[in-house]
């Protein structure tokens, strides 16, 4: 489908202040559900908050929480599946399921599995958690929509460490060749992976050049500046071929004692830490709950 035949998403000025309030509300939900679960991945959930908030609440994703299987919905795949608390929080706040359900994260019989599972929580589009796979799945979805002439955008959120996986580059190469204009990759470039700094383990730079070399349009942004994120997403969805937004982020963003601290990659906050974190994340009275 040609770009000019596609419906604009969330056209016009966005209320950045409202998105910022929403980001606070999502961060609070992430911290509360992880503390309740006493396991999970805070660092990489918090670094992706503004990216996910912009998608769900900035008008970029077209969805209907009452019809999660609506054929013309846009797709969002969290390829870095360990960050799923941020998606669960967004889905709950968007009305896909009750917010109280967030407290069941990672518990027996819950729809909120520790990593995303297709067919459990409404709004989850792919089973991920074994890294490197989401972009391939997204490419299949983008081609299926193109084949049917459906105006569907497919957004895939990848981790920076995840981009060490070979399959990411298989999918990037194939997309660069097939040129689906409805496929957008976002990389949450928080500079850390489980064992340490990405640059120390297996560096991925020059990162933007890699995507460009594979045939993608690339734009970098500050992944915590919602104005910048929104502008970049606008740019990405107006590209003729596949587009990649490299979002520079901070692992643990929004919780001072977690920021840049890789030990919170996979360790849940204690009750004390939760209280300290929430105190620093006050809900605005018009807050987005």
């Amino acid at each position: 489908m040609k770009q000019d035949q596609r419906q604009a998403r969330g056209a016009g000025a966005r209320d950045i202040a409202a998105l910022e309030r929403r980001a606070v509300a999502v961060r609070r939900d992430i911290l509360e559900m992880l503390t309740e679960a006493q396991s999970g991945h805070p660092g990489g959930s918090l670094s992706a908050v503004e990216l996910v908030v912009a998608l769900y609440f900035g008008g970029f994703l077209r969805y209907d929480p009452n019809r999660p299987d609506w054929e013309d919905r846009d797709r969002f795949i969290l390829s870095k599946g360990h960050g799923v608390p941020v998606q669960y929080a967004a889905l709950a706040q968007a009305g896909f399921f009750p917010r109280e359900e967030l407290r069941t994260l990672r518990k027996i019989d819950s729809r909120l599995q520790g990593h995303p599972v297709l067919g459990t929580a409404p709004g989850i589009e792919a089973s991920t958690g074994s890294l490197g796979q989401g972009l391939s799945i997204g490419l299949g979805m983008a081609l299926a929509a193109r084949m049917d002439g459906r105006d569907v955008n497919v957004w895939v959120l990848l981790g920076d460490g995840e981009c060490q996986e070979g399959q990411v580059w298989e999918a990037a190469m194939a997309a660069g060749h097939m040129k689906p204009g409805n496929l957008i990759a976002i990389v949450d470039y928080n500079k850390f992976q489980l064992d340490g700094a990405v640059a120390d383990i297996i560096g991925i730079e020059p990162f933007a050049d890699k995507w460009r070399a594979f045939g993608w349009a690339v734009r970098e942004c500050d992944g915590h500046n919602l104005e910048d994120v929104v502008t970049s997403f606008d740019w990405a969805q107006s590209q003729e071929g596949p587009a990649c937004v490299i979002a520079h982020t901070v692992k643990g963003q929004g919780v001072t004692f977690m920021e840049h601290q890789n030990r919170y990659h996979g360790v849940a906050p204690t009750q004390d830490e939760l209280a300290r974190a929430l105190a620093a994340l006050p809900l605005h009275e018009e807050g987005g709950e």
Partner: protein
Amino acid sequence: MNGIYPGLTFGKATRDAYGEALRDLGAKHSDIVVLDADLAKSTKSFTFGEVYPDRFWNVGIQEANMVGMAGGFASSGKVPFISSFAAFVILKGYDQLRMAVSYPKLNVKVCGSHGGISIGEDGASQQSVEDIALACALPDFVVCVPCDEHQMRAVVQAAYEHDGPVYIRSGRPKAPLIYDATPADFRFGKATRLREGGDVTIIANGLMVGAALVAHEELKREGVAARVVDMATVKPLDVDEVRAAAADTGAIVTAEEHLLHGGLGARVAQAVAATHPVPMEFVGLDDTYAESGDPEALMWKYGLTAKEVGDAVRRVLPRRADHSTAVGAGARR
């Protein structure tokens, strides 16, 4: 491979029948999409691609990406049939088959071509001796090893009609004809009894069905009546047919072009142990890869002919509970 199936007529390779069946199915169903990983001319998926280029993607040499893409197509309502050599799509795509197909129960059909060692000269890297075990280990997967061109056509049709993941193994060489025409009554999980017999049952699939029929004739001359069962579907297994074989004939031999671990024999043994324990013998590859060589020579060297099937029967008969009456009894029945 004429030397190992005396008395049988050869048809097409099952991979040729796969491509033709897919092309024919494509005419009826516009939701079928076909993906291949640069082996379309070998897997024969190009037969579909030639006619329906807008529904065919050659993703290049990217098995993992191909499987992931198939998951995306399937969750968007398409019915992807994807193919590569069995050794590549199963092994390089295994995590993707798990995460993007099996775990989310998506409607993806996987054809692993060049199954077994009968591909010949290319050698062990291209031969697939473990695909059935691995495919069976993926929950919800139907796993099927057709024996000839007619059955393959029925299997492709059944795969389309089945809502869920299916693994189909196809073969490179021309295969001996077991059926006269596309079996209309084929369905997954239902075995076909090809020969009656009361002394022992040979349960086989793929090329080993031909070997079992040859063994049946040789054993008949020795006075042994061997029942022959074509167990094309390894999962779900036709447990009723296995129980009947055990109860009626008292001994079972399995034959497969695959490692003995985790394939047809292991699954039949599990069913036998759970329903009606009887002595069993197993024909297959015993913890080894094969090598380069003429396909027929390889089948001889690695023990995948009617001779080994017959020998396995001769080993199992004395172990039958009523072995004193077993040998020769068939001639009187």
